[in-house]
Structures are given as C-alpha cells and as structure tokens.
C-alpha cells in the first residue's frame, strides 16, 4: 500500500482532511461553518482520489453530526466530526456525556476557532470547552502540524477510549502551506456494537463511576503527554534564562517569526505546547522554574495560564500583557517581546514602524467596504420587500449570508442558529402582554431552518405566537461555500439521499398559513407579506410562513441568462428640467416633498360635492352623528339619496380598481335611517325677496331648501296633491318607502316654506300672475312627464308609458294587472315598472332592451334584483310595433338589433335591425317613450331647445325670460336623482345672485365637478370584499311594497367604512415616518414636518404615501440621493465622481431588480439590441 510521496500547497482545512484520511478514519460527519467548511469537501476529494471506504455526510446540524459519528465509534470504527467553534456549542450536550462514556474506535472532534472574530458570533476558545467537558485537546500551529497531529489524536482516543478535540484557529484552517502527503493508513474495522447497557445507558449512579474513570484517564494522559516531546517540546533550552516563552498553536508560529525578525531566534527558550489540556504540567513547571519570567502566547483565552498553579512568574492575558480580545497578531507579539527584551537589556533588531503611514492613510477618510449581498441576490429583493411592507417592523434574523440584510435595515437580530424564530415568538409574547401590536417579521435561511429552526417553529405554533416567518430559500448553503441542503437530496459525496421539502416540514410544524413567493417579483412579495400580516392579525391567525424561493444567483449564474434585464441610470434629465444640485436642501422648492390634501375622487365626482371621504372616516370612528352632519352640509336628503343616487362617487372610488368600491350609498342610508330627531338647520337672517318654485321634484325641493336657508321667502307650487314630484309618484315604494320620503320632505315644511298643492302653473296661474303676486324670481322645476313615442299603436288600450304607470300605481289608480306584461325599455323607471308589475299580480313580466345587459341604463344592482324577482330579459331586442286586437294591445313585434363597434366613449349604437320579425303575446304593455316637459301653457316667450326642453343658459340656468330660471328634467330631459338635486342647487345659487344683483357668471367653475381625481397606490393593498347588503327575501317582497334593501349591522358598517383608502387626505398613518430612510420626517401636533436639511430627495415617502397626500414630482434622472445604495445596497450600484450613481458593469448581473427601487425614475431598462 505504498503511495507516491507528494507535495502540495493546500489550505489548512485540506491538510486537516488529509490528516483525517491518513489516520484511517471510517466515518466523517460535519455541518458547514466558517472556518471549518472546507474540511469535508477535501475528505470527499481524497476519498474519490484514493477510492477510500469512508462514510461522509453533511449532517443537518452539529449535534446530529456529533452523535452520528460518536455512535460509529461505539461500533469500533474510527470517526471524526467537524464544525466551527460555535457549532460545538450546539453539540455540547452530547460532548459532555461522551467524555464520561468514552469511545471504542478513535473519535476526534475538529472544532475551528475564529479569533478576531472574522465570521462568527464569538471569539470563544474551544480549548475551554475541552476543559469543561474534560477531554484532551490538540492545538496545531500550522496546517502541517494539524495534519500530523491527527493520527496521534486518533491513537490517543482509542488508547484511552476518550473523545479528543483538534482545535485549529482560522489562521491554521485558512492558511495555505506546502505539505507532504503521507501514506493513507487503512484500518480494518467491522461494525460491532457490544451491548453494555451499564455504559451506553448508564444511570446516574454509574455516571459517578464513569466520572471517576474519566479523571483517572486524564491523569494518565497528562502523564503520557509530559513525555510526548514531539507535541510538547522546548527550543533553545538552557539551565537558566532571563525570560522564556510558553507558546501554543498559532502563538508558537507567530512567536517564531517575530523572534527571527528581532534576531532572537537562538536567544529565547520556547516551550511549545501541542496539548493545552490536559496540560503536561511537569514539563511546564520545570520550564518556568528555569526562567526569571515567562510570557504565555496562546489564542484566544488563558487556558494554559489558568492551569499553571504558581503564576508569580507568568505573564499573558490574565495580567493584560496580551489583550484579552481580538486576534493576537504579530504586531502585538512583537511589541510584547520587545518590551521584555528591553527590561532585561537583551539587544533586538530595529523593527520598522508603520504607525505614521497608518495615521496618514486614516486621515484620508477612506470608507470601509463592508460585505454586501451579491449583485442579483434574491435575499436583497426579499429584504427590500420586507422593509417596504413593514417599515416599522421588528426583524429578528439568523445566521447566514442573509445576516447582511442588516445593511438594508431589515435585520435587527442575529444571535445563534434558529434564534430568528424563537426571538420572533418571544417578542410577540412580550408585546402582547402589554396589549401592543407590532409587526414581527423573522427571516431564516433554508439550511438554518433545517439546522434548528423547526423546534422553535413547533414551539411558536404550540404557544400561539403570531408573526411572519420568511424562509429565504436559495436551495444552497451559500455563505460557507455552496454546500447542498437537505432540499436538494444531494449528499456530501453523492451517496443516495432523499430530497426533503420545506413545505412539508413547515406544515408538519402545525403552520396553517404557508405561501411560496418569488422574491424577484418584489411587488407581489410585498402584497403577500401584507396578506400574511392580515392573517396573523385575524382571530384565527397564528404564525404565517412565506417561503421566498429563488436560487442563489452566485451558485446558479445561468439563472439570470434566461431573461437578463439590462438597466442604466439616466443622468441627463429631460430637456425641460435642469438636473438639480446634489443636496436636497439645494433642490428647487418645487422638487421637494410636501404634504398637500386633495379633493378625494368620491367628493370630486359628486354633483353636490359631498365630502364622502370625511363622513366615511367619521363612520369608521363610530361618530355617526358627526358623519350625518357632514353629509347634510351639502345634501339635506341623505335618506332619499342613499336609495336613489346613481352613485357617481362609487364609480370613481379607487377601491374599485382593486376589488369593489366602498358602499358609500349604503353608508349614507345607514346614517339617515338611524336618525331619530327631525333635523332643523339654522336659517340665515330673513330676507324680503320672494321666490316661487314651480314643481316639487328633487330640483324644486333642493332649490327651495337652499334659498330658504339663505333667508328668502319661498313658495312651492305643485300640481299634484302632494309634494315630491317623481320621488312621490314615479318611484316605487319598495325602493323609497313612504316614511323616508315624508321624513325628508318634512324638512321643507319645517323650514317655513309656503306649500301650494294642486296648483298647475300655466293653467291655474300664469308666470305673469306670479310676478304680479310679488315673486321676485321664479324657478321652473316642472320635470318632464309628457311621453313622446314613435312606436305604432301606443294609443291602444292596455298600453301605458312607464311614468304614467308608476304614477297610476302611486295614486292607487292601478291596483292589479293581467298575467302577461311586457316592458319595452331599460331605463331605471322601466325596471321599476317591471318590478312593480310583478307586485301587482302579473305572472310573467318580460323586459325588452335594444342593446346588451352591460348597456342597460338602470343601476346594475336594481337589474339584478329585478332578475331575482322574476323579470325575464330580452336583450338586443327592439320592438317594432304593438299588435292590437279590437283596439286592445295583444302583443308586440320585435327584431334583433345589430350594434356598432364601441365609440371612443365605449357606447354602442343600434345600427340595424336584423332577421325575421318575432312576436310576443301580451295582456298589458308598458312603453318607454321619451319624456318632455309640458311647456304649452307657459307662453311663447319661454324659449325651447330643439329637443323640446326649456332652453337655459347652461352656466346660470336662466331662461329666455329675465328672473325666470329652470332646472332638472325640464331642462335636460329625464336624468337621475342626484343630477336633479345638483341642478336645483345650482339654480338656487343663481337666484341668490340674481336677487342680490350680482353677476350670475363670475367664479362659477368652483361649483362644478372636480376633474382632477387623485390616484392612490394600490399595489400594496389586499382585496377586501365589499359589504354584503342584506336584502328582503324575494317571496316577502311580492306581498306588499316592502323595501327590498335592508341595513347591515353596525359593526359591518364600520368595517365597510374602514375599507376607505382616504385618497388625498393624510390620516396620520405614520407610514411616511417609518419609510423615510433619513429620519427627515417628524410628527408634530399640526401633522408631519419634513426637515429639508435631512431630506435626500429619494421620493420614497411620496411613492409610499398610501393616500397620495405627499406630493413630489419625479425628476426622471439620478440626483444622487443614494436610496438605491442605502435601502437596496447593490454592490453594482456605485457612486460616480459627481456623486450620482452609475452601474458597475463588471459586477452587474442584469437582474433588473433595481428598476423597482429608484423613486426618481432614474433607473430604466435598456432596450435589448437586435
């Protein structure tokens, strides 16, 4: 088995691996961790190169690795386990017991220390743990020595049946050195487990005996070590010395080089210690005896020093000669040795000083390049999403590459493996105890989750913690050099393994909420995070787990070659804008962020400008009376409006772009219906001027109300015996109950408005008569009730238009209907007529409409109810004539309509009628004619439009007769209720101006609809269903004219109000406060304040403001705000000489993620060439 002797330059960890295989080790397990990770891969290499039969595994954690290897040694095999020093903490439990119980085959624990520390949580010294556990420890000075110590360690372990630790420091593990490859020993061992229950499962009584045996073993080992001169030897030995050095491990190597440089390589005696525990005390004490003083050089803690009983001559860490923290560097050792030499007047060579140069360099103020996540790293995207979603969150994290998420301000803690989860649950309970709620988002890597995440998760689920856990799954152990995870199913040396699933594990821990997200889609991830947060806040909520899955981009470089997104940064702004200076305080004022409240879309779209956002917020706060008062400021008829309004507000409600509009109308109805005391507004001082309002429909009532509020003497003239116009006689009671109508119209009576019923102006009284009676102004709000139809045979019996049908019902003139009724139109009134027909006993009601369902002018909600009640719809159907028999209607003929393409407004016209004429029999037909105002009696001086309505100045609503105004359907033809109210109000304002002798035209644009409707960001929001409006069961509707739409419970109303997005108005959500990376925003009594000295102009506040209250124009070019560096921190984004950012092409991987980050729109995708 003679092998060729070979020299290679290897890493310390490879030398260790070589030592392991040269010792004939059979079983090797490890968990990766810097600086130990390279040992196992090197063992696999040697195994393959030399066809060795050695079992190798990456275990799921250090404890698991330790126990696997330990029990292999129980079977007689040689076994070893490798980990970093803090990994041994995880395996301390089995270590302590293993010392007592001992081993059969040699068992070596390799635990790599990290003085500095460079890549660990602590600088802990494994030699202390060896002492604590009572096992021998070897401390190699170099890779070569580590290699050579291993066979000795195995022999010692086997001889004394005790685990042995090899403790290399980072400067050994990550040193490179030329070493000689020795032959590999083949040790023949077959697994043979001997049943020895009193040893392997010793009870405490036996443990005492084992402890005693252990102490004896250690004494024997110390004895043997005293004589092992290749491990513990003296150089430059002499009878007496002024001072000597005891050095262990790396301390020895450094001391040697330092002594050589000082020209002392032959002067100072050195006792080199290879086994700091148990200490070869005889040798040590004999050495100290010979010296005046002794310096102890050991890394990292005073392990040897503490074991020396008489410390009177000893210097080291205990008396502070060597600093007690940080790596013991050659600079330190030089300084200490020179000090000793000076004390004893030993001449030393001069050493150069680097201090002046270091000082000069430090004065240059070069920033330290901190480690960052790689360009294109999916963790960066995850952290960015987490921070954007929860700027005020607490972020416990864990150990791995992703600890660097602290650079993105999305990692608050990094403690030990698995602590992200336990910290999250502990934090939750600590806050929950005080009744406080704070978003807690824990992050953990896939490998760390397997390592020790799951027990914490089980505990969190069991104890009812509520937090979000994001498992950053890049499917590799990236930090330590790309070791496979259990998810891959690939084992350390390729022996068959089985792929595990994180999902299964998470579910197995009892987690009920699990989603897999792609962190590269940051917006979607933000949404998923918020969704998860809503889950945890819900009563049934618990731990929510998101698996952010995307491969490590450094490991799988080809991933980004599939769809590379090349980006660039615009430095030259559009020509009309000058590139601003680089400090935002120097930004021109118009480019700075400001808070500016805006009219909400709902208010802007309301013909009456009711502040819907305002009263919805009051409802959300439970302040119903205040909310109603706010509605009444603009609209005195909330109950009627809440039933009949065409709801322009809901059409523009921004929630509609996300899910469904807020049920604004319903909220208003709720407010109106809960009011008990009749409402009486305050009137202005009484005025002398008298106004006559002709007609008491919505326009007339509204105008009367407005004018009376201003103190005018108002009289209403109504032709019918009751007030309300179409409200009273053409709106069925199942939509507007009589008591609601009376309650709100009662307001008019309470205001002292004179009401004259049964007087038809034109017939009973002319306009001239009114003038003579002393009315200074007249409003014609007479509606449009005159039907005009081209359909043949509308004069036949059993044919009626929908308005007169409804009026007949309202006046109790029509009380029952024959079985089959046809309705020939799709207006609101036609649908009302159809539904009324059903209630009057019709068995079959058919409604014909010329276009599609989408184009029916009636409210879709009403249409839905009509269908539910049994109305049968015929779309694309145009009646051509009414069939008669004996002068009575017997049916209709109709044809199929062919529609045009949608026009720019989306409207489709009927272009032709096609096909065969069809027929339908009928007992009763309700037509849908055009309606015009009845103007014949009002005299010829009142000019008419070509359509046959009253002609008015559209801006002032004044007719051709001075002092006579007109509003509502009489001017526009039939329109909806809210437009009629608005027209009445407008007319009232004109009349007021007229009576005051003011201009009718000046500044009237303010009264109109707002055209600029603020838009709020929706991408962060979660759909939340609109309130379900309770409805009367269909069977109950038919009996009487009971109102169909009912009211939900108060809690539901409040919940619905909370769906409002507060478009354009700050509601002090504090989001800007949390978002601002510069801390430039503060909250004051008056609201938020921006400190422009601190503001960097990143625009993240304006982008993130959920109500779009913060305004800040996008410059479209880089202003050097640095948000992409600070909050995204991609190493491929670097500052150019002028302070602006540029792309480092050398490292950019074209991931395109930064496109989602820049708030100024400076980063843009470059169109691919060719």
């Amino acid at each position, binding site marked *: 088995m003679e092998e060729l002797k070979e*020299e*290679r*330059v290897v*890493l310390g960890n490879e030398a260790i691996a070589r030592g392991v295989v040269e010792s004939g080790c059979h079983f090797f397990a490890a968990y990766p961790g*810097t*600086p130990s*990770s390279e040992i196992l891969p090197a063992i696999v290499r040697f195994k393959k190169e030399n066809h060795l039969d050695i079992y190798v595994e990456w275990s799921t954690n250090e404890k698991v690795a330790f126990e696997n290897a330990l029990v292999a040694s129980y079977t007689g095999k040689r076994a070893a386990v490798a980990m970093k020093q803090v990994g041994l903490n995880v395996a301390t439990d089995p270590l302590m017991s293993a010392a007592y119980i001992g081993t059969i085959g040699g068992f070596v624990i390799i635990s790599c220390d990290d003085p500095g520390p*460079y*890549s660990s949580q602590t600088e802990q010294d494994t030699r202390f743990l060896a002492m604590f556990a009572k096992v021998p420890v070897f401390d190699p*000075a*170099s890779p070569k020595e580590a290699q050579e110590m291993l066979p000795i360690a195995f022999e010692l372990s086997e001889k004394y049946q005790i685990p042995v630790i090899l403790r290399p420091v980072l*400067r050994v593990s*990550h*040193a*490179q*050195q*030329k070493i000689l490859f020795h032959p590999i020993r083949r040790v023949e061992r077959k697994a043979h487990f001997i049943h020895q229950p009193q040893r392997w499962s010793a009870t405490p009584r036996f443990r005492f005996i084992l402890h005693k045996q252990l102490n004896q073993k250690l004494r024997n080992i110390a004895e043997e070590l005293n004589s092992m001169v290749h491990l513990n030897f003296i150089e430059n030995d002499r009878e007496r010395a002024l001072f000597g050095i005891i050095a262990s491990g*790396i301390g*020895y*190597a*450094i001391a*040697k*080089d*330092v002594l050589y*440089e000082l020209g002392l*390589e032959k002067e100072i005696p050195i006792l080199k210690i290879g086994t700091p525990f148990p200490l070869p005390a005889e040798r040590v004490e004999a050495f100290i005896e010979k010296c005046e003083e002794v310096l102890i050089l050991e890394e990292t803690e005073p392990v040897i020093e503490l074991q020396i009983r008489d410390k009177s001559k000893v210097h080291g860490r205990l008396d502070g000669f060597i600093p007690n923290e940080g790596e013991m*560097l*050659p*600079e330190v050792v*030089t300084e200490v040795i020179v000090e000793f030499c000076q004390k004893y007047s030993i001449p030393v*060579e*001069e*050493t*150069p*000083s*680097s201090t*002046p*140069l*270091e000082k*000069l*360099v430090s004065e*240059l103020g*070069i*920033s*330290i*390049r*901190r*480690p*960052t*996540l*790689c360009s294109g790293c999916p963790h960066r995207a995850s952290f960015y999403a987490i921070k954007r979603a929860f700027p005020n969150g607490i972020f416990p994290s864990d150990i791995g*590459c992703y600890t*660097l998420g602290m650079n993105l301000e999305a990692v608050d803690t990094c403690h030990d493996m698995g602590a992200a989860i336990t910290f999250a649950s502990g934090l939750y309970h600590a806050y929950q105890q005080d009744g406080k709620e704070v978003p807690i988002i824990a992050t953990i890597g896939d490998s760390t989750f397997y390592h020790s995440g799951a027990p914490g998760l089980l505990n969190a689920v069991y104890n009812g913690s509520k937090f979000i856990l994001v498992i950053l799954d890049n499917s590799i152990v990236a*930090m*330590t*050099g790309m070791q496979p995870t259990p998810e891959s199913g690939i084992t350390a040396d390729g022996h068959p393994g089985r792929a595990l699933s994180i999902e299964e594990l998470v579910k197995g821990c009892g987690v009920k909420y699990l989603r897999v997200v792609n962190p590269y889609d940051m917006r979607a991830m933000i949404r998923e995070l918020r969704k998860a947060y809503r889950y945890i806040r819900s009563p049934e909520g618990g731990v929510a787990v998101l698996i952010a899955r995307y491969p490590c981009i450094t490991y799988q470089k080809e991933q980004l070659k599939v769809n590379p997104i090349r980006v660039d940064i615009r430095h030259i702004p559009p020509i009309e804008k000058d590139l601003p200076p680089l400090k935002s305080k120097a930004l021109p004022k118009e480019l700075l962020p400001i808070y500016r409240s805006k009219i909400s879309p709902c208010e802007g779209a309301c013909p009456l400008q009711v502040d819907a956002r305002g009263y919805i917020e009051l409802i959300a706060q439970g302040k119903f009376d205040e909310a109603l008062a706010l509605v009444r400021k603009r609209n005195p008829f909330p109950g009627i409006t809440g039933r009949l309004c065409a709801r322009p507000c809901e059409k523009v409600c921004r929630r509609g772009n996300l899910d469904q509009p807020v049920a604004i109308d319903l909220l208003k109805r709720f407010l109106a219906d809960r009011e008990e005391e009749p409402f009486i507004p305050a009137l202005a001082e009484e005025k002398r001027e008298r106004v006559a309002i002709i007609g008491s429909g919505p326009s007339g009532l509204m105008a009367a109300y407005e004018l009376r509020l201003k103190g005018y003497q108002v009289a209403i003239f109504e032709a019918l015996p009751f007030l309300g116009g179409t409200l009273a006689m053409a709106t069925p009671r199942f939509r507007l109950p009589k008591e609601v109508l009376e309650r709100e119209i009662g307001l008019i009576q309470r205001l002292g408005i004179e009401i004259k019923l049964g007087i038809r102006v034109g017939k009973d009284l002319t306009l001239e008569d009114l003038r003579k009676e002393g009315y200074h102004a007249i409003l014609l709000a007479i509606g449009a009730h005159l039907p005009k139809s081209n359909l043949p045979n509308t004069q036949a019996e059993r044919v009626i238009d929908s308005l007169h049908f409804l009026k007949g019902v309202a006046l109790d003139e029509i009380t029952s209907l024959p079985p089959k009724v046809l309705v020939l139109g799709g207006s609101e009134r036609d649908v009302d007529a159809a539904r009324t027909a059903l209630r009057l006993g019709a068995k079959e009601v058919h409604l014909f409409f010329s276009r599609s369902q989408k184009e029916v002018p009636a409210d879709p909600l009403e249409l839905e109810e009509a269908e539910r009640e049994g109305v049968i719809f015929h779309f694309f159907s145009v009646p051509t004539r009414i069939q008669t028999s004996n002068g009575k209607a017997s049916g209709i003929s109709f044809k199929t309509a062919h529609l045009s393409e949608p026009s720019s407004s989306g409207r489709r016209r009927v272009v032709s009628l096609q096909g065969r004429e069809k027929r339908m029999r009928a007992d009763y037909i309700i037509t849908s004619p055009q309606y015009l105002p009845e103007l014949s009696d009002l005299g010829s001086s009142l000019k008419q439009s070509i359509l046959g309505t009253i002609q008015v100045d559209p801006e002032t609503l004044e007719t051709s007769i001075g002092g006579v105004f007109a509003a509502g359907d009489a001017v526009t033809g039939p329109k909806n209720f809210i437009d009629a109210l608005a027209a009445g109000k407008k007319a009232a304002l004109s009349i007021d101006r007229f009576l005051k002798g003011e201009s009718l035209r000046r500044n009237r644009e303010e009264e109109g609809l707002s055209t600029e409707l603020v838009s709020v960001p929706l991408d962060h929001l979660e759909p939340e269903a609109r309130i379900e409006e309770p409805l009367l069961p269909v069977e109950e509707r038919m009996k009487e004219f009971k109102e169909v739409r009912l009211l939900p419970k108060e809690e539901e109303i409040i919940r619905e109000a909370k769906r409002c997005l507060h478009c354009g108005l700050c509601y002090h959500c504090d989001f800007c406060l949390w978002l601002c990376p510069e801390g430039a925003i503060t909250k004051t009594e008056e609201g938020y304040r921006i400190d422009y000295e601190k503001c960097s102009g990143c625009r993240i506040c304006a982008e993130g403001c959920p109500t779009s209250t913060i305004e800040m124009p996008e410059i479209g070019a880089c202003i050097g705000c640095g948000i992409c560096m600070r909050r995204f921190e991609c*190493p491929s984004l670097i500052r150019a000489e002028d302070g602006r950012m540029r792309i480092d*092409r*050398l*490292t950019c991987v074209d991931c395109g993620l930064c496109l989602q980050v820049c708030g100024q729109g400076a980063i843009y995708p470059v169109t691919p060439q060719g």
Partner: protein
Amino acid sequence: MNRMSDQRMNIQMIISGVGGQGVLLITRIFAQFALEEGYPIIGSEDHGMSQRGGSVMTHLKIGDFNSPLVKKGNADLLLSLEKNEAYRTLPYLRPSIRGKRGGLCFINSSDPNYMDPRVESYLGDKGIEVHLFPAEDLAKEMGMPQSINIALIGFATAHPRFPFPYEKLRRAIEKITHPRFREVNLGIFEKAAFEGKYWLERQP
C-alpha cells in the same frame, strides 16, 4: 525549523482587493510557482463574510516561515487590485531599513494622480516604490474584464526587483487558469508585461 542559510527566496507579500476581484487566484498562481520551484510557502486567505464584496486581503510568505501572517512594515511586495484597498494595505510595506531597500507596490488604477501627495511623499522618503497601472482598462480592452489580477502581475514582472521571473509565472498561470480563458489570460499577461517594460523605461 530553523531558517536555512542557503535560502534562495524569502518574500513576504500582501495581495489586496475586494471580493470577486480574483485576489485568491493571484495567491494560487504564486503557490503554484513556489510548488514548482520547491520553495516552502505559507499564507492566509480570507473566506466567508469578507468575500461578499468586502475587503479581501491575503498574506503570502515564500521561504522558511512559520506563521501565515505578514506583519505591518514587513511586506516586500504589495499587489492591490483596488485603489482604496491599496491605501488600507500600504502600511504592510517595508520601509527602507538596515540598508535594505523599501517594499515594492503595484496598484491597479487608471488615474495616474490618484495617490494622495502626502502619502506619496511619505512613501518616497521611506524608499517604498509605488507603481500604478490601469490593469482594469487593459483587461477590458482585451475582452476579459475580470482578469485585472493577471494584468497587474504581468505588469509587475517588468520591474527588475520583482522577485518572480516572467517565464515561471507564465507557466504557473498556464497551469492554474481555466483552459477556456487560458489563451486570453496569457495574452493579457504578455501585453501587461510589455506595457510594464515600456512604462518603467520612462521612469527616472
């Protein structure tokens, strides 16, 4: 392990840069060189955290040494791939002492005026020689932007005091670099050495 008197080579060096620039490859080239020449070698590499774009520095000692670390003020040679990292590692260079000349330093920089005048004059006083070379520009020009490392050592070979002979380093590069990039890398090495000669000839 006493120092042999017939030691043919005794070099302490520092190689600095940032993660991803190929500092470790330079170490491997010199290790290969030492192996072929039969010199002992020991050094220390940065792994883990520092590789993620942070500062990276390796110590390398060829000759009879025990510890892998170079003490500040002891380096014969500094190769730096990045300007700021160069500043930070300058104090490792040996000032002229006991009649021995000061350390030699090669920095990748396309800006010939990058060195702070006070630092420059201090280094001059201490006999430390600094040479700037736009290694990155050359590597880019040759179509291999990641080979700044090869370009910088190629340039250094032109210096008479640079202890590694051109041919031997070339052989080490040939052996170490990936076959796919070998030709380009050798081209870069050659070109850099040529530019180094030209440049050094013009130095006072």
